[in-house]
């Protein structure tokens, strides 16, 4: 995409130097999921290289600069009859951003979560080292699964520079269907009608994503309907519910519904006064030790995850 390998190396050297010396670093992608979790505080904005690094359709893998827009990736894969079903709300989202935000697309029921798709990640650590986690092959148990640590880490583990993803042949035929009846599965199947597009994402300035055990959706959905002003889209069989509202108070009410049903709500946009996670992170002690070990001064995406890194002394 008009960038030479030498330019990418220069860019990486500059990125490493910036990260190593800055007090606070904010990795920026397409700025489409900039507020997921807690919004970032201030810091030096840094960007990852973009463009296809390697793509061999016969391997069903593709390597991209983390700054590559998902829409551009889809275009390159489409030319070879393949796809990588990341499917973010906005195709301007970058691959690195989708990985950092831990976004699995609406086709997760069939194709699995994002974390199962990321084979190898290169990233710049807080002290400016360029490191690799994972490996290039579709099957790999060589060492600790660092890519899974990065998926959903919201820029707090490192600045992701390059991602290798598992892709797949595009199905010969793919259609969305809709049905009105949601109570009786047989009646629902009988009423299926083909439609042109995927269901629209719920629109609203204040948005979030509920995660709940899939069968709890049956009770959760009617309860959400009772919250005035909340639009929602549930992924049946997955347990993800995308919610949107014009009033931040409605997002808070949706969070209460999620909690009542054993789930939780991740704030994704708007509602600036609302806590991103609705409480302390699970296994906070382990999370804080990881952060202390990899980013002792807390310079990476400060503010985005609740809880501050443990004092640097803990890392030795």
């Amino acid at each position, binding site marked *: 995409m008009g960038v030479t390998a030498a330019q990418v190396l220069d860019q990486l050297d500059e990125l490493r130097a910036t990260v190593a010396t800055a007090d606070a670093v904010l990795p920026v992608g397409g700025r489409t999921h900039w507020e997921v979790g807690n919004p970032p505080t201030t810091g030096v904005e840094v960007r990852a290289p973009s463009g296809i690094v390697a793509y*061999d*359709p*016969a*391997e*069903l893998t593709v390597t991209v600069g983390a700054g590559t827009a998902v829409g551009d990736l889809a275009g390159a894969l489409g030319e070879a009859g393949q796809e990588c079903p990341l499917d973010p709300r906005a195709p301007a989202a970058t691959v690195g951003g989708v990985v950092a935000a*831990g976004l*699995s697309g609406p086709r997760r029921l069939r194709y*699995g*979560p994002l*974390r*199962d798709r990321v084979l190898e990640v290169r990233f710049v*650590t807080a002290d400016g080292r*360029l*490191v*690799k*986690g994972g*490996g*290039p*092959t*579709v*099957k*790999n*148990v*060589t*060492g*600790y*699964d*660092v890519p*899974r*640590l990065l*998926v*959903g*880490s919201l820029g707090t583990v490192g600045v992701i520079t390059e991602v290798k993803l598992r892709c*797949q*042949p595009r199905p*010969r035929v793919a259609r969305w269907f809709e049905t009105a009846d949601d109570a009786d599965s047989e009646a629902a199947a009988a009423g299926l009608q083909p439609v042109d597009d995927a269901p629209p994402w719920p629109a609203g300035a204040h948005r979030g*994503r509920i*995660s*709940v*055990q*899939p*069968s709890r959706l049956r009770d959760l959905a009617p309860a959400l309907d009772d919250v005035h002003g909340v639009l929602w889209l549930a992924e049946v069989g*997955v*347990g*993800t519910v995308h919610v949107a509202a014009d009033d931040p108070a409605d997002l808070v009410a949706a969070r209460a519904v999620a909690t009542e049903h054993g*789930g*939780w709500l*991740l704030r994704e946009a708007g509602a600036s006064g609302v806590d991103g996670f*609705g409480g302390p*992170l*699970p*296994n*906070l002690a*382990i999370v804080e*030790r*990881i952060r202390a*070990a*990899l980013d002792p001064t807390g310079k990476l995406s400060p503010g985005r995850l609740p809880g501050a890194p443990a004092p640097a002394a803990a*890392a*030795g």
Partner: protein
Amino acid sequence: MCFPSTGADVAAAVRIAADHDRPFVARGSGTGLAGGATPVGDPLVIVTTHLTRILEVDADDGYAWVEPGVLNLDLSRAVHHLGLHYAPDPSSQQACTIGGNVATNAGGPHCLASGVTAMHVFAVEVVLADGSITMLGGLEPDQAGYDLRGCFVGSEGTMGIATRIAVRLLPDPPAVRTLLLDFTSIEAAAATVSAIIADGIVPAALEMMDAEITRAVEDFVGAGYPRDAAAVLLVELDGLPAGVAAQVASVERIGIEQGARTVRVAADDAERALLWKGRKSAFGAISRIAPDYYLHDAVVPRTRLVDVLQRVYEIAAEYDLTMMNVFHAGDGNLHPLIVFDQREPGIWERVHAAGDAILRTCVDAGGVLSGEHGIGLEKREAMPMVFTADDLDVQARLRDAFDPSGRANPRKILPRGSRCGELQRVPEGAWV
């Protein structure tokens, strides 16, 4: 050594180890091939084989809570009547435990389409090195914060001991067909693998066996494998009946185009089972040839299969060893198998030297050290072949964040000197 029968017992045992500042090692059935559960440094060995309860099965949400000592195949058998199965199916599935599968992130033939263990674990209750019990992951699709469950799977007992595991149960496919294709050259078989993938088909399983192993298996099982084939492919296709029928036709066509001598489509479940029995009995069949074998595990990009296999046979010739290959061709996961008799003087040196040469070949071809067996003790010192000191330092820090004491299964996975500045406190008596 202790044999706890509840998760609380496991926690108590780990606490005793903590009180005495001793390392501990979890062990399942002991089928691991990389030495991950081998006790080193005089640890407390905590054997999980008495934790065999299937605690809950939920057909609606497709999961089961199991204790770590449940055998892999026993779980699939227990949920068979519900039309469900547990997908990862290592060759040792009759003997290996789910806990061990989690520790090694185990694979199997059906991981080509279904994915390895990490993709089938929703949650793990873990006893950490200080004896505390915590839950990693959950039944909801995403958890807040880091994917600690994802970090734990495949950590070979170095982050703690699993005491309860929520695994995914998949619905049995409505239609399954199994095909056996036989070839007069390995190259044609490998080209068929690539052509199937290039055609947009991702089979449920796609296995290759070379001439030597095919003959050994046929003499052992009598599955009707052609004894004079240079290579055979076992292809399994599953899904909805119409789609499977179309894919069977495509694979038959591709096979013939690529030079398959015959394409045999199993007529019924009995014939399917027989074809699979051949594949899964491969390692047993070898005992008819020589008393010992060293099974390797490495992954290369699919497109490099032919080059790498050729080099593997050359290595066997260079070291005057008998080499067989039976492996997961669809995902490039090689299992070169060196058969030998350890009574032969000097044989171990040759076996190890050949093994090192094979690993180097796979890494040079863009591959990795292990696809499904793990690193354990076996490949620990080979880790610098694929990771830099900085890469390993990050892994060491991640490991130590789960276990700051360094007592959980020490000396596994990471080579000595992985920690820049060696952050880890070395416990008394540990052999690090």
